[in-house]
């Protein structure tokens, strides 16, 4: 069987990022004919995760000069149609990419030393043991993605681990934050009086919505002022403000309370912190949606994108031109990283990312932890979201930890993150025994397109989708996918539960047999 495939679709989706993949699954699930393309040879686009070798290739691609030439495409056009040529295969839209080793190429095995001395050779040898995320995210245990995975039954393709501790940086060192009731009582870091204050405050945050009177009072207050009004000690204010509400000094009170509530509501569902981390990395999540799309008949082709878009005189998209063929579609969903320049928003803010391999945890303990650290803002940097994962998540080989840092871009990623990195790990030449040694690091910037107006310049049946945003969870992508889906198919349910295979028992009645041919003719993609 050759590359022969149907020429007409209900929806063509270009790009396998998060929002695109959710939409592909949702459309396929309700019986739409879906073609899903990605010009990369891997899934996920800017949401991908790579093994060590795959990452090297990605870095290499990013460092190639941006190719501004247009695709050579000469699509057949009908009357009134025009073609918008796309850029030659888009380079990954990451900038300021800097990858660096901090250990020698090879080392003599040092015998019975307690701490393994890593070398580049050894890390490279274990390349398959890595799953390095471009856009690492955590899921709130009662957040939008968890609920969607369960309600759509896509959960069966995914596996998670619970974040085992939430840590904060306070008075120049790392401290675990008590976040469950049990933790609060177990912790030595706060006094009994403080415990009581904390419990009362958290209780209030879980109930604030039912109390409009009280809410009014705090309308114009910052969350920090609210906490201070409560006479909390500095210690507790720090825990609640930075680690639990993941806020800053400016965060408005209501927002701080709502963030605290979100944290508390997700506690205890799967473990003693509110967060889940996907096994094999966040890059698994878009793939799980792609699998559902395929299971319901969606057609997949990687290493294939669109060279041109064919637009009619009424400013609607008619078809895409891909690999010398015109593929008609009623709708086109396209990741912003693919969009022709004329569709792009003017400016978008940026994200600074850092990935670090270290030889022990940033906060050593007697077992392997999965750690979330909201690093509070200081003079030199904004708040930085830090996730440390170990080998139990299949993110990296045993004996190594991987640290992901994410913050709003001000300068380059390296400038934005270096001061925090220095606080947490030993760079070459430094020998603080309480800190892990840095083995390898990578910095890069990408655009945060979640705040852009994407509909402005596009044909009416073309929907652009954003790349990764700064939030911890996937809420934004889900929201965007739902909005687009309801514009395309307002009558259809968004990702109704897919039956388990065991539940699929079809009636073999004659009645059904008679119905079948018509349905096939109208809805089945022609093979």
């Amino acid at each position, binding site marked *: 069987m050759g590359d022969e495939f149907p020429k007409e679709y209900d929806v063509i989706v270009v790009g396998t990022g998060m929002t695109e993949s959710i939409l592909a699954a949702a459309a396929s699930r309700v019986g739409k004919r879906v073609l899903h393309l990605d010009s990369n040879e891997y899934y996920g686009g800017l949401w991908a995760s790579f093994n060590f070798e795959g990452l090297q290739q990605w870095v290499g691609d990013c460092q190639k000069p941006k190719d501004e030439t247009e695709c050579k495409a000469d699509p057949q056009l009908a009357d009134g149609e025009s073609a918008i040529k796309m850029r030659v295969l888009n380079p990954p839209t990451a900038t300021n990419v800097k990858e660096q080793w901090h250990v020698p190429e090879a080392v003599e095995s040092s015998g019975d030393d307690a701490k393994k001395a890593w070398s580049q050779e050894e890390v490279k040898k274990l390349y398959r043991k890595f799953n390095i995320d471009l856009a690492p995210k955590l899921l709130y245990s009662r957040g939008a993605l968890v609920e969607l995975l369960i309600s759509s039954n896509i959960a069966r393709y995914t596996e998670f681990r619970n974040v085992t501790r939430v840590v904060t940086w306070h008075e120049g060192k790392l401290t675990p934050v008590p976040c469950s*009731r049990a933790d609060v009582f177990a912790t030595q870091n706060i006094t009994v009086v403080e415990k009581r204050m904390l*419990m009362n405050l958290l209780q209030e945050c879980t109930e604030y919505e039912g109390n409009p009177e009280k809410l009014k009072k705090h309308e114009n207050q910052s969350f920090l002022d609210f906490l201070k009004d409560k006479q909390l000690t500095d210690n507790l204010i720090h825990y609640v403000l930075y680690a639990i509400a993941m806020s800053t000094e400016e965060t408005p009170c209501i927002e701080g309370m709502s963030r605290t509530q979100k944290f508390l509501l997700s506690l205890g569902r799967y473990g003693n912190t509110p967060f889940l981390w996907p096994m094999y990395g966040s890059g698994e999540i878009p793939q799980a949606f792609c699998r559902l799309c395929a299971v319901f008949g969606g057609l997949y082709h990687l290493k294939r994108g669109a060279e041109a878009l064919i637009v009619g005189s009424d400013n609607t998209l008619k078809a895409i031109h891909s690999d010398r063929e015109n593929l008609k579609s009623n709708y086109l969903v396209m990741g912003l990283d693919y969009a022709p320049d004329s569709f792009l928003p003017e400016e978008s803010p940026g994200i600074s990312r850092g990935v670090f391999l270290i030889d022990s945890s940033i906060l050593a303990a007697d077992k392997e932890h999965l750690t979330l650290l909201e690093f509070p803002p200081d003079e030199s940097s904004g708040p930085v979201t830090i996730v440390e994962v170990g080998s139990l998540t299949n993110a990296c080989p045993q004996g190594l930890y991987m640290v992901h840092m994410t913050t709003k871009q001000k300068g380059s990623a390296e400038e934005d993150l270096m001061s925090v990195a220095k606080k947490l790990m030993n760079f070459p030449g430094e020998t603080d025994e309480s800190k892990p040694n840095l083995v390898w690091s990578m910095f890069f910037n990408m655009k945060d397109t979640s705040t852009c107006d994407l509909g402005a310049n596009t044909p009416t049946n073309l929907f652009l989708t954003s790349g990764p945003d700064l939030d911890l969870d996937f809420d934004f992508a889900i929201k965007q996918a739902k909005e687009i889906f309801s514009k395309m198919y307002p009558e259809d349910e968004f990702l109704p539960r897919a039956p388990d295979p065991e539940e699929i028992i079809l009636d073999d009645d004659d009645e059904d*047999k008679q119905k079948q041919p018509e349905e096939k003719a109208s809805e089945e993609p022609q093979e």
Partner: protein
Amino acid sequence: MEGKAKQATPTETAASARSRTKRCQANLSEIFKTSCSSPVVMAHKKLDDYTEDDLGQDQPITSLKILVIGESNVGKSSLMNRFIDDTFDPNMANTIGVDYRSRVVNVDGQTVQLGIWDTAGQERFRTLTPTYYRNAQGAVIVYDVTRRQTFERVEQWLQELDAYVNRTDVVKMIVGNKTDLKNREVSREEGQQLARRHSTLFIEASALENDNVQVCFEDLVYHILQTPGLWEARVQPGRIQLGDNNPSLSEMTWNCISPNCSLL
């Protein structure tokens, strides 16, 4: 259907054969077309079907994940369907809505719940997601004995399998399918040699004639059960599948009444 059930292999218990006949011939392409109103009969989970007689006395069930890979049109879905409910549908358009199919078998005195995962057509342009491969204990790599080019792709499928399966001891079976056809392009010996080179199991089969299909999967299961550490450690502590709400954890939430509350 009644007649076909008798073909169940000796290793399978009578009860499981009986319960398989409960399922009608499935026309799977129907399932999503009319979305929720499609003629799907929701039945309750298969374990209900199997409980008493099936599971032997108090034997624990081992669940295994088996992948079926190989080029398009070699008969992967047909082999799966033949094995699961002894059907063969030459007009089966695609296995729409079906992710995997499962069946309880008894191999070597052990009751095993086999989940056989279909490619969902994603193999067509070699676009299987790495996710598909995760946590598999066995893989069936299929080629069509009448199309040489599908045989030549087997090595690439083995490579892809090695790249994504997260362990090295996954049991592999190479299957030359469609032996009922006359126009062979690949001899049995060539198939055997390939399997020997890659240290995999080998069998020739016909999904159409139900030749060697049961044996193929059962042999694979047998070898998985013989591989120490491959199947026992299925449940790894700390791994979470969503939807398992663990009630014992609820005491960690704030709204509960725990004995510690008296401190407040």
